[in-house]
């Protein structure tokens, strides 16, 4: 799931400094689940912004909306009418949502209300952790189900670096060393021999390095 985090209110305030009437649009999928941009957050942020603006002597009117998924044309289409009447739209969707809105309604200003942070999971209620970098060429079969691309600070492919200390990463002692985790897991699985296979340099062209990606399934095209 995409994990995002609300931007500081000061930053948002600066983006909408000149507006007197805006819309805040939440998204009912990933950002709802990570408490960054669901209907509840739309309400909280709207209330906070209205108060902040009133304190600054520049009241603002806010229309609150939440759609099921901002990244689908059909779900954002019904907003067309109301979007007309506002000066800017603050999207609490991930970066995809903001862009979908901007692409569908090119004449309008769309602003990001959240920072799209990573692809991850909730370790527990209120704690999220990164798990995937969308490299486009998954190797989890070789690493005991633990991703060295996203969880090793250096995305190393053949064991830990010299910065691995007591199972922790030299970047931050709060971060587990991914290769230590992989080693422990493979050991438990009795598959330590996996580590003997040397991974050649990864072909990063399936990832961001190959430029913007696109998938086409001819059979599904209407």
């Amino acid at each position, binding site marked *: 799931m995409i994990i995002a985090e609300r931007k500081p209110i000061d930053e948002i305030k600066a983006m909408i400094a000149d507006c007197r009437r805006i819309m805040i649009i939440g998204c009912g999928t990933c950002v709802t689940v990570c408490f960054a941009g*669901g209907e509840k957050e739309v309400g909280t942020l709207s*209330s906070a912004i209205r108060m902040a603006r009133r304190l600054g002597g520049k009241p603002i009117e806010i229309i609150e909306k939440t759609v099921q998924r901002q990244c689908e044309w059909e779900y954002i289409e019904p907003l067309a009418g109301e979007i007309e009447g506002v000066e800017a739209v603050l999207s609490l969707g991930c970066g995809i949502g903001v862009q979908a809105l901007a692409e569908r309604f090119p004449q309008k200003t769309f602003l990001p209300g959240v920072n799209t942070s990573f692809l991850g999971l909730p370790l527990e209620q209120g704690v999220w952790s990164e798990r995937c970098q969308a490299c486009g060429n998954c190797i989890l079969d070789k690493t005991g189900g633990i991703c060295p691309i996203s969880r090793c600070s250096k995305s190393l492919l053949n064991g830990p670096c010299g910065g691995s200390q007591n199972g922790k990463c030299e970047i931050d002692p709060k971060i587990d060393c991914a290769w230590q985790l992989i080693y422990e897991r493979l050991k438990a699985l009795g598959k330590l021999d996996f580590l003997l296979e040397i991974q050649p340099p990864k072909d990063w062209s399936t990832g961001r390095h190959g430029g913007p990606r696109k998938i086409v399934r001819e059979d599904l095209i209407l």
Partner: protein
Amino acid sequence: MKGAFPPCQVACPLHTDIRGYIAAIARLEFDKAYAIAREPNPLIHVCSRVCTHPCEEKCRRGEVDEPVAIWALKRFVADVVRGKRRFATRNSQFATRVAIVGSGPCGLAAAHDLARMGYQVTIFEAHSEPGGMLTIGIPRYRLPREVIEVDIKQILDLGVELKTNTPIGEEITLSDLKERGYDAIFISTGAHKSRRLGIEGEALAFFGVEFLREINLGRQVEIGRRVLVIGGGNVAIDSARSALRLGAEEVKIIYRRSRAEMPAGEEEVEEAESEGVEFHFLATPTKIISEDGKVVGMECIRMRLGPPDESGRRRPIPIEGSEFTIEGDTIIIAIGQTPDLSFIRPEDGIEITTRGTIAVDPITLATSAQGIFAGGDVITGPGSVVEAISFGKKAAISIDAYLRGETPSFEEPVELEALSQKTLARIKRIGREEVPKLQKPLGFEEVKLGYSVDMAVRASHRCLTCGAGAIIESEKCASCLTCVRVCPYEVPIVNGKGAVIDASQCQACGICACECPSKAITIGFDGFEAILARIEALFEDSPKANPEPLIVGFCCLYCAYADGVDVEKVRSQLPANVKIIDVLCTGKVDSLFLLKAFELGADGVFVAGCLEGDCHNISGNIWARKRVEHVKEILDEIGLSGERLQMYNIPSSEWWKVIEIAKEMVESGKISKR
């Protein structure tokens, strides 16, 4: 009736929304409570005194500790509004006339409902006063006359015509009524004829209902010093207690079965016992002994209990050779009543059952005679007041359908499933409060007193509001699992279609509704919109001109009333600039409410609940604290200072500290007028 209903509501013959009126009491909305309780019950004041309250037997709180004191709460709502509110008005009027024979609870209920539907209703009553058994049967110390009058007046105010001293069957027969232009007739004459024992000397005895009737009509009744009452029903108990009040020194009740089989209400039996009535079980009289035409005692035989009979109770069997005598100078036989059907003539065409009751269609209550219906004790034999009312209401629907040429439809509500052991184990135990009683020598004044406001509110807080918990808007649900994780009762689950919260188990704590990131959950009582409306209303009448900072306190009503603190007094001592929003558990205080209060102009906001660990809903106050912390951060972020928002945990026994808190917030200097 759609959905599943609380067992109390299903058990009530009138399907009263008990949960609804108790929830209104819990929120201090007494007028609303009355309106809800009165809606299905035209004899609410009467029921507040004499209802057999089958609801309490089914109350799910009874599985936790003791049932909610529903009957006492009904009396509370009836008493707080008594005479102040006129309830019913009629919308339309038809020329169609309906005659009702008998003005007991059944006839009165039918009259009320038919009049509200718009019919011209005339009640024919044989006695000088209306009310049937309510007036001439039930003693005044249980059901004061003025209480009956409140209900009857409201019914007559609908335009119902009452003809007292007008027995049917003598000068006017049922058939005459038809000729006089009544399009339908409802017979609700009750069961007023005492059953006989068929023993020697019976002619020297009083009979229960006649005995009570004489007393109720204010006639002189001479009884001796030592009174023997035969029977185990409410009439026997009423007779015994009335005998004590007439001056009897010793009153004994002789009942052929054991205490467990007594049809009388348990509370009635206990009250009689505490007043000094003696009980002799497993004995029945065989002969009344007299000397010179005066009763001197009774010969009885001991009984043992055999296998259950058709009533489900164990059949009493005489023990041969166990005869004994018991001394007494007055005997009152109260072994049951049957309908007196002597007013029915063969030409009326009304079929009678072998049990001596009027035969009716069990669904429509139609008798074998066209346009004539019957209900209440006259078709069932002696039953409760609330059952009689329900027959009256059913008859009204049926008569209306008959007059329109339609088929009546009656729907029975479906009951919620039982509480699971898991849920039961987590519900906070709260003892039930006894209803205070009159501490005076025995008289015909009302014995039972009602709850005070504090007692009633406290008692209402024991209601589990069964089935009025979380409702999920599934199209909004993101299946995020938050509800599953935060519920202190572990009720929600998430399946392929989203979250599912079992209404039978949900305790309506509101935590999931406040935590849900998609706002997909609302709760039945004290939900988001309801509390938001209260916040908005509070600012409507708060003049902003007040020079003092405006403080809004979200205070838990459960905590406030839990430990005997005089809440009204505490409220009256709050400074004028402090406004309270009552909530049933701080777990229902949404972070959006805190922000809303500031947005609307509050200078400071506090949330007051009990100590962590004491919460009515296990973790409601813990979640409230988390939300307060979160909103404090937002307030800091927008430059309003998080210091303006505080969470307080106060022991219920020290609830008056709310006053100090409010003052302290202002005096600390952290909160200034914005």
